[in-house]
């Protein structure tokens, strides 16, 4: 959602889209339409690119819309919370967390390691060590009320 410098006037758009399913008016339609992009075009390309992914997996996507209304997009790995909920076998994260509230799920360090390995492949993680990413995943787990055990 930021504007680039004068000439191209490109704008960035950050969305989370379920893999293989797109176009619904609420999330994507208006957001793209405002920038003059035909949502059908995006949806076709997106669904095509994500055809190897389990249907419905939420995928963050960053769409760059150039001044002449052409667009490119980059797909990233699913959100960490998505992985953690699946690994812990729960539908939703905790409503409340802290010492007075019980955990709602449990993951072990090996699962954390595997999640971190997937996240490491993302562009934005290039400067982080795998250990750092693991620590981040553990932090996410704690804030969702998921206990991390050995």
């Amino acid at each position, binding site marked *: 959602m930021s504007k680039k410098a004068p000439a191209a006037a490109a704008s960035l758009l950050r969305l989370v889209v379920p893999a293989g399913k797109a176009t619904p008016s609420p999330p994507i339609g208006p957001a793209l339409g405002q920038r003059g992009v035909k949502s059908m075009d995006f949806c076709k390309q997106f669904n095509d690119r994500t*055809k*190897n*992914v389990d249907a419905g997996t939420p995928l963050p996507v960053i769409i760059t819309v150039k001044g002449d209304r052409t667009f490119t997009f980059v797909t990233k790995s699913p959100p960490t919370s998505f992985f953690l909920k699946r*690994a*812990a076998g729960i539908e939703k994260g905790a409503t409340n967390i802290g010492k007075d509230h019980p955990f709602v799920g449990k993951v072990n360090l*090996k699962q954390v*390691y595997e999640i971190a390995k*997937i996240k490491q492949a993302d562009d934005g993680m290039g400067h982080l060590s795998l250990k750092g990413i693991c620590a981040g995943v553990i932090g996410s787990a704690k804030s969702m009320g998921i206990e991390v*055990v*050995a």
Partner: protein
Amino acid sequence: MLKSFTSTAFSGLRTVSQQQVRCIQVSARSLNVKDDSAPKAKRTVVSSAPEGTVLKGINYMKDGKDPVALADDAYPEWLWEINDPAVRNARIADPLDKKHHKEARRQAIKGDNFIRDKKT
């Protein structure tokens, strides 16, 4: 042009053989001066997912499968320490560690904020 490192508490401008030289304080830890003389304790943590367990929920590709857990030794050493509060507390207690100073600073800020809020 940095002519010398010094681990004493002096930081600033120094004259060394008639040349002005900027010295910075460097802690032993940041110079990676590791004290490995003490024998490393054998890892006591045992994973709840022994080798061969299927790690569910990780795979999200159609043609992929959930990864299988390897033996505990196949994972890097740091993995068993990052969730260990004892390791973290040891770092906070060690005055040469950055974590010690970060935590001290954090507590000082909390104290200041508390006092400031009390006044109003």
